[in-house]
């Protein structure tokens, strides 16, 4: 299954319009700096970044579904693979790995390689383990999955900027939202 999505991810990424990642990296960096200035409290910055990600995610899912042509996933395991192999590849051009499943298959860790957001970045000592620099990614995953009826919680558990060896996002499936029929629709 993983192989299949690997290939699909590559194919889709080759198809989409691309730009040099440096513009994105630098702009993101400038924005985070601005947020830290505006909010003072680091926790607030994390929340704000997550929120921004959420807003992106709810719009990005549409493009994702349209460009990748992926249909409904049979289970959460497949969803995880699709996010890692197709989602990350298609938008950021990077590979992510799924691992550390819990017994219920409702929680997994997403390991991100070569995150373009953190190129050129070095966190000052006082922000390490406090600021989740790439927290926007958590929001994107949450927003996108919510649009396909999955309520998840994403948190950064490890970040290379805070001297960890890898960057890892923990994704927990909280509930599967039921398909609600809009009011007044028969």
């Amino acid at each position, binding site marked *: 299954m993983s192989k299949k999505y690997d290939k699909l991810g590559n194919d889709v990424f080759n198809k*989409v319009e691309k*730009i040099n990642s*440096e*513009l994105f990296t630098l702009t993101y960096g*400038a*924005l985070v700096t601005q947020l830290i200035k505006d909010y003072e409290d680091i926790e607030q910055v994390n929340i704000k970044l997550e929120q*921004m990600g959420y807003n992106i995610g709810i719009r990005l899912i549409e493009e994702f579904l349209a460009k990748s042509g992926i249909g409904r996933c049979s289970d959460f395991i497949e969803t995880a693979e699709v996010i890692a192999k197709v989602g990350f590849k298609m938008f950021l051009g990077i590979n992510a790995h799924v691992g550390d499943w819990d017994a219920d298959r409702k929680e997994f860790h997403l390991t991100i390689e070569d995150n*373009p957001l953190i190129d050129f970045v070095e966190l000052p000592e006082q922000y390490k383990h406090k600021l989740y620099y790439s927290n*926007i990614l958590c929001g994107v995953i949450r927003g996108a999955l919510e649009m396909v009826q999955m309520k998840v919680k994403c948190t950064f558990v490890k970040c290379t900027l805070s001297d960890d060896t890898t960057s890892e996002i923990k994704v927990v499936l909280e509930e599967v939202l039921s398909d609600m029929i809009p009011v007044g629709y028969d």
Partner: protein
Amino acid sequence: MSDPLSNPTINTTNVGGQTTTQNIIGGIGSGKSNSVGTPYTTPLQTSAHTAANSLSATNSPIPTHHMINSNSSNNLSGMATPGGPGLQQQQQQQQQSTISSNNLGLLGQQSQQQQQTILSPITTQPKSISASCFEFFYIEMIDCIMKSSSDKQHAHKKLDKLGFKVGHRLVERLSLDTALFPELLDSVKFICKVFWAMVFKKTIDGLKTNHKGVFVLTDSKFQWLQHLSFDSSASNKDCSEYVQFTAGLIKGAMSNFGFKCIVTFDIQQVSTCVFTIKIES
């Protein structure tokens, strides 16, 4: 450049004629002009972009010049054939008259040689992301800045500052292996071509100057306004916040070249943006 036949043809024609020849040539040798227009994205180019590049080459002797070196015979036949792919656009583009002085054209060629040298290191590390990914983020960033500022003016100032920082750093990376520019115009041309190509995957469509420190850059298909929906009944029709960041980018880039300047912009029609750079002495 050493080709005695084609070189004068390009450099001595008047503005209109020049536009025509270049458009045609750009269209014909698309594969090649591609690699000059947007060097670092070359492997990823699709045919749609190829067309865009040939259109946007209006004011640049650069792609042409490069072409001439490689396959001049093709070019000559190309010039004789009226109606290359770029021709339809020519009427539209003619009004955005380009720098016509021969002198400037030559300068451009010099800077092209410098640009050529920087192509290789960038092509070797083509780290790229999906363009839509950046645009999603960009929209959200503007929204975030607008909401976190007390008024519009304040927000614009912030966006300008953000753009300045990014532009300053971006140009530093871009011009790593470029020799110092001898003239102000070369710096502006670098922004019009290399810098613009990196950010928007196209070059500036028109560059005008009064030779006294004022430059007018026209982008007739401004990327960051392309995907905004326009609601004629909406009260807020002004989308200047989506352009302000770019003004900052230009300012930052110019400051890295050692020029302090004021950048103003004007949104015309649907997605045409006109930037005015005024150098402060």
